[in-house]
Structures are given as C-alpha cells and as structure tokens.
C-alpha cells in the first residue's frame, strides 16, 4: 500500500498551515528522517521529515498552498515494488480542489464518487481530532470547511453551544485572517477607527492584520479580560551582579549578558518559591517541577516568547548560548512550536530602551510576568548615608487566581536576593 503523508499539526491548536516549499520532487527516493517539506504557521516555519522510506509518488499539494488543513494528504510515498498506478486507490482521499492536479485517471476516479462533499466532511472531522472535540452540526462543519473557517473560531449558539448553520453564516472573518474574529468583534463596538477617521477626514495608511498580529491581539485581549492582574514593584541593586559579570566575561571566551543572569535569578527564585511557579487550570492549579522561563523577544511585526526550559539547573553559559540561538531563530521565524509554547513564567526586558519601570500583560498559561527596567546609577541611602548605586526596578504582574500578594512579594524577595548576592546563582 502506498503511504499517505499528512499535513502535520505543529501545535495542539493548529488547524491549518501553509505548505511553504517542497524539499523533494516526485520520483525522489527518501529515507526516514529526510527533510521533505517546509510548513509555515502563524508563528514559525517547520521542517517536515519523512517517517518511512520509499519513493515520492505524488506531491498532492503544491508548494505555496495556503490554508492546508491538518491531516490532509499532502503527498504519497510509494514503498519498494509499488508503481505509480497504485495511486489510483488513494485518489479518493485527495481533496476535490486538488483533483485537477492529479493525473487524469485519478481525477476521473474521484469525480465518479457520488457525493464530493462527503469527502470534505471527512477531512474536517480528521482535522479537529487533534483538538478538543468541537460540537458542530454536520451542515455547519461542511459550510465551515467550504468557507475555509476553522470551527474552533466560530462561536456556537445551538443547543449546548453547538456550532450550527446560522453561526457559520454569521461568522465574519477579517480580510487578513480568518482566525481572529473574537478580537475583531470586541473592537467593533461603536464606530470603527476607520469609520471615524473617514468621517473626520484623517489620512492614514491601512495595513491588513498579519496572522501574528491577530494572535497577539486575541491572546492579550483574552489575558487582560480574563486574568485578574495585580502588580508588585521592587528595586534591586545591580552592582554586585555587574561586578560578577565583569569577572566572568573578562577572560573573553564567554559573554554572559545581564539578561542571562536575570533568567537564572528568576529560575532560582521560582524553585525557591514554588507557589509562584504555577498556572491556573480552571478547576485545578498546576505547580511546575522545573522553571521554564519565557523571554519576550521583539521581532519584525510583533513578538514571540521563546522558553529556556529547566533554567534553574542550566549553567549560565548554556542559558546564554540557548538564548542567543532562540532569539536569532525567533527573528528569522524559525522557532518550533514547542520552543515557544507552554512555560510557567515570562520576563520582559525594556531596559535597553531606557525604560525605567513598566508593567506587562501576563502571557497565558503563565502565572506571572516580570517587567525589567533599565539599570541606572541612582542616589540611595545606605547606613543613613547618601550614596550612589546601580539600581533596577522590576515589576511583577501576577495572576491573582494563582499568585497572591504575599506569594508574589516572597518571590520578588527571593529574586532580589539572587540579584544582590549573585554568587548564590552559581551554586
């Protein structure tokens, strides 16, 4: 039997993606582990590897095709001894819009099957299997499929929230993306900025919302609307840390940044105050065993938060190398989903922009985020005397459902302790 190669789900929430490029062509012999294609999602590009050996019999989906549903057949692999004739058997699995690209014999075969729409339903069902089950009427599933909507984005109004025909018909995806309706809907109360600007004759440049911008909008809106935030600010003296860093970097073979040290300090503090290393899970709270620290990285058109996992037990050099690699690939859009999904805590550092102090929005599923301001020389009072020290203001945004005031404060004390007595980090 020829083997079907399916559109992979790069993340639990992915329903479709762009088949950016094929690394193989029909007739190529591949073995397990060979890269065969590149898939793009809203956040990243990922390489797809062959799982079996064989000859590429057919590339079903053309390179550059957008919106390919998860689990759709994208290519067919022939194992030893099989001829391309065997492809006919699989032709019915190919979606209708692709039949025009298949050889004539295949196209004919698939047209003969009486109910072309039935096949589409099959794919929709397949596509949503990887997620939590979405209840939708058969007709709604088919209409969504035909319109290219992800069922998960459609608000169901049928019995028990089932997605029904009227919901699909009422669904209005924005021009740029079909995935961020919730965000749009909220923004649409009252006259839209565009309506207002047009009314007032204000000139502007209009750009479509990119997929990443749509996701950012949706997630941060959700975070601000559903997570009860509160904020705690602490001042840390940096001089000891800067002096230690100087010593570490002096030989010249490594270059540890202040940010690397902050990641380490956060990780150590999270292990010391495990109540702060937690996620709200609806009817339970998850307390994590290790400190997976996400770091916000600004990239063109938005930001991503790659994660340094188990940072508490990694040497500073490892954290430094990893962070350089992650940030570099984040900027190129080459992060894998498991490199930016999950985590328990994030750091956002705007110190390099001269920001003294700010508060950040929690990035679910994290329980808190630490906003780092710039380090600067300030007058401080020590032993009743005015003196100069390098100070840094840090503001912790806490999800009050998980982290109470006292817990957040205890965490900040532990963090401050690490920063001001940095040798503790190295143990």
């Amino acid at each position, binding site marked *: 039997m020829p083997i079907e190669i399916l559109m992979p789900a790069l993340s639990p929430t992915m329903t479709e993606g762009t088949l950016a490029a094929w690394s193989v062509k029909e007739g190529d012999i591949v073995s397990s582990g060979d890269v065969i294609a590149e898939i793009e999602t809203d956040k990243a590009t990922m390489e797809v590897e062959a799982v079996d050996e064989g000859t590429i019999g057919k590339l079903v989906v053309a390179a550059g095709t957008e919106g390919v549903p998860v689990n759709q057949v994208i290519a067919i692999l022939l194992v030893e001894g099989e001829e391309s004739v065997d492809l006919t058997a699989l032709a019915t699995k190919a979606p209708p819009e692709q039949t025009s690209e298949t050889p004539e014999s295949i196209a004919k075969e698939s047209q003969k099957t*009486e*109910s072309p*729409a*039935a096949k589409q*339903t099959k794919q929709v069902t397949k596509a949503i299997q990887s997620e939590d089950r979405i209840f939708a*009427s*058969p*007709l709604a599933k*088919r209409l969504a499929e035909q319109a290219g909507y992800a069922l998960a984005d459609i608000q169901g*109004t049928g019995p028990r929230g089932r997605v029904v025909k009227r919901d699909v018909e009422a669904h209005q995806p924005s021009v740029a993306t079909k995935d961020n309706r919730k965000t749009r809907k909220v923004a649409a109360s009252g006259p839209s900025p565009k309506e207002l600007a047009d009314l007032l004759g204000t000139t502007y440049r209009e750009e479509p919302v990119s997929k990443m911008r749509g996701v950012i909008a949706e997630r941060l809106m959700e975070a601000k609307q559903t997570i009860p935030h509160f904020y705690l600010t602490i001042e840390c003296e940096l001089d000891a840390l800067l002096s230690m860093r100087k010593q570490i970097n002096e030989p010249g073979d490594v270059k540890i940044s202040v940010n690397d040290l902050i990641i380490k300090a956060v990780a150590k503090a999270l292990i010391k105050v495990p109540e702060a290393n937690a996620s709200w899970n609806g009817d339970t709270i998850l307390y994590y065993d290790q400190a997976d620290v996400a770091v916000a990285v600004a990239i063109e058109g938005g930001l991503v938060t790659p994660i340094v996992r188990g940072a508490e037990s990694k040497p500073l050099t490892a954290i430094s190398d990893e962070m350089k690699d992650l940030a570099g690939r984040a900027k190129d859009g080459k992060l894998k989903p498991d490199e930016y999904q999950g985590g328990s805590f994030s750091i956002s550092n705007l110190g390099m922009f001269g920001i003294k102090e700010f508060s950040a929005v929690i990035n679910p599923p994290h329980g808190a985020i630490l906003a780092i301001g710039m380090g600067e020389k300030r007058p401080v009072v020590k032993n009743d005397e005015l003196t100069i020290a390098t100070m840094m203001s840090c503001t912790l945004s806490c999800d009050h459902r998980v982290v109470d005031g006292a817990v957040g404060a205890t965490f900040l004390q532990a963090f401050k302790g690490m920063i001001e007595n940095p040798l503790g980090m190295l143990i």
Partner: protein
Amino acid sequence: MAKQEFDLIVIGGGPGGYVAAIRAAQLGMKVALVEANHLGGICLNWGCIPTKALLRSAEVMHLIKNADQFGISVKGVSFDLSKIVERSRKVSAQLSGGIKHLLKKNKVTVFDGWGRLNKSKEVIVESDGKEIATIKAPHTILATGARARVLPGLEPDENFVWSYREAMVPKELPKSILVVGSGAIGIEFASFYNDLGVEVTVVEMADRILPVEDEEISKIALKALTKEGIAFHTGSVSEIVDKSKGDVKIVKSDGKKDDKGQSLKVDKVISAVGIVGNVENLGLEETKVQVDRSHIKVNEWLETDEPGIYAIGDVVNPPWLAHKASHEAIICVEKIAGSKDVHPLDPNLIPGCTYARPQVASIGLTEQACREQGLEVNIGRFPFVGNGKAIALGDTEGLIKTIFDKKTGELLGAHMIGAEVTELIQGYTIGKTLETTEAELMHTVFPHPTLSEMMHESVLDAYGRAIHF
C-alpha cells in the same frame, strides 16, 4: 373583588395556550389560563383530533370494502353514521378532560370565561355577560386562535352550507357534496365523505390542489384522489345558484365570460377556504397591538407592539398549524423566562400533514421554492411501488421526494405522499433540525422491511445511488 396577580396570563386554551401555560408553570411561574369555551381549543375539539377519528372510520370502511384483496370475505357491510360521529366526539372529550387534568397537575389557575385586556393591561374575565374576575400579570400571551373564513355568498347556514363544524357532525349522510377549497381541511373532508360513498366534487381557485405542497405531490394527489372517485375543478370558483334546489355553478376563476361553467346539483356545500384570526373583543384597541388582515403582528419572539403582550398560534402569522402554535408557546415562554438557549422558530422546520387517503406530508422548501431562490439542487425520488412493505400492505401508490442543496448537501425539503407518510415525516424533521447533510442520512441504517426504507432510498436517489429502483 380582589384583583388576582400572576406572573403570566394566557388567553386561550388551545394547543398554543395550554402548552404556554404548562411550560411557564414548569419554569416556576404562577400562571392563569382564560378559556371561553373548551380546553384544547379547535384542534382538539373541532379540528385535528376529531377529524382523525372520522378518517380512521373511513379508512376501516375502505379496508373492509377491499377485504377480498387480502383474501378475506366480508358480507353485508354497513355503517352507522351517528356512531362514527359519536366516537369522534368521545375521542375529543377524552382528550379535553386530559388537558384539564394536566393544567391542574401543573397548578395553572383556569378561568372559564372570555378574557379581554383593559387600558392598564389587566385581563377582565367575563362569563354570561358578567365580569367574574380581573387578573393582572406583567406578561400576557394571546392565544385566541382562528375561525373559518367566510366567503360572500358562501356563508355557513347550518343547513346547505357547512363549515368544518357542521361537516364534522353530520346527522345524515348527504348523497353529494361540493367542497370549496382544496387545502388540508377541504381534502380531508373530501376524502372522508368519498370513502363513505358520498359523491364529492372539489373546487379550487388555484391551478392545483393542496397548493402549498410541492407541485409534483399535488399532481400525484390529484391523480390518486380522482381515481378514488372525487371530481376536481382547479382554477375554478363556485357560486350558489339556488340553495333550495341545491343548484351550484362552477366557473373558471379567471372569470371568462365565454365559459358558461358547469351546473351541478349537490346536497351540501362545505366551505373550507381558510381561516381568520380571532382578534375581536380582546381589548386590543386599548393597546399598541397591531392587527394586519385579522392576524396579530408579532416579531420573531412573538412580542406584539405592546410591551408585555405576546401572541402565538393561529392568531398570528402562518403556517396555521397546531404544532406550530405549541412550539411558539415554548419559545415565547422561555424567552419571557430569560432562557439563553432559545431561538426563533424557523418556518422551514415545521412539517405539514394532510390525512387524506393517500396521506401527504412535507417539510422545508418545495422544488419550486428552491428554483425561485436560485438554489442548485439534487432531487431524489422513490416510489412506493419499489418498497416491499408497501407492497405487502397493499399500498403501492405514493412517492417520497427529497431535495438537497447541490453545494452544501443541506436537506432543503422533503415531500411525501402515500400510506403513513404523516408518521414518517418526523424522520426528516429530526434530520433537518439537527442540520443533516446527505452523508448522515446515507449512513443511517433504516429497519427492514418498513416504509421508512423509502426515505433512505430517496436520499440515495438524489445522488444517483438508489439500490431498489
């Protein structure tokens, strides 16, 4: 007399009103129901139910007359019309008593009298010209139903011209009847009297009988009923020439002068030309409630223009069917109660049934309606003659027709004619309500041998896959 206060008042105790009262009581409301005549309304007392009892007698009669087809000899068959009518009345009485019990069980306070709104939106209940109560509630549902429409020159006189009421309780069997109107009511009476041996002529103004049904079904019905012995004049109107002699004249409805029409002598005329809403003497003129051609105007939530006043059933827009009234009752009450899971009624999800022999049942869009809406469709048909159970029953006339949207596979409509189709239509109704496509219907296993297998085959046929035909 102290004013009694309630959460909800319902005026009218028919299939709209009593269902509204019971549902409201279930939701914890204190409910009053005002009924002037009989609980159960027209449906139960003078409509759906007693006619089904009459038609059952006609069906039994038909079977006995044709017993030899089944290898059974029956001699000396006769019937007693008064007993047929008596049975029909007993069936109604039994059910009306049942409603009384249900209302009591649900602690609904029933007021026997005529309910009318006053300026302060209270309801005055009158009996025998005397005010017997004044009741008050923040919400009042008008479920006052409808009555037979009267055409000029065709006024029921309890003698020569019958309305459905007289037609339901004949004292003696007429030899010949002219039925005016070929909607469900007209066709059911025509079928009933025809089966009892009366010479029946039906006149219909539209160009086909059962004009709301799919054209193809109308044609089959015309053929089948003509074969049973009923004479039809479509595209025609009738006119009474001389009541005392029973002279009537049938002319083409376009009124062309050169058409002399057909002169006919009949014993009785049954007027079945539609209904008008009961909107009089309800105090509506004291309110903002709008009435349009004898029916109360409501929005999709059954709200009238007067806040706190609602209307459901035959007194509002069509289709004028008992099950539509009952469903509106549920929607109206649940909306009042603030339920989130309530949606306006979709007219395409209301089945319609005619209990003649053959029966007719349908749901959703007709083929013509699909065409008018510019929908591309797949149509499936399966005839009774291809079904084993139908042949075994000796009922081989009929058709099941299904219509699907070509693009989406949505079941747009189903139209059936033949034995027991009124019991079959619910299968498609459930499917349609659950938003089925052809795929789920094709995957459904239908029991063998049943008439329902035709429902499967019709769907398969819409995609060129029927197995047995």
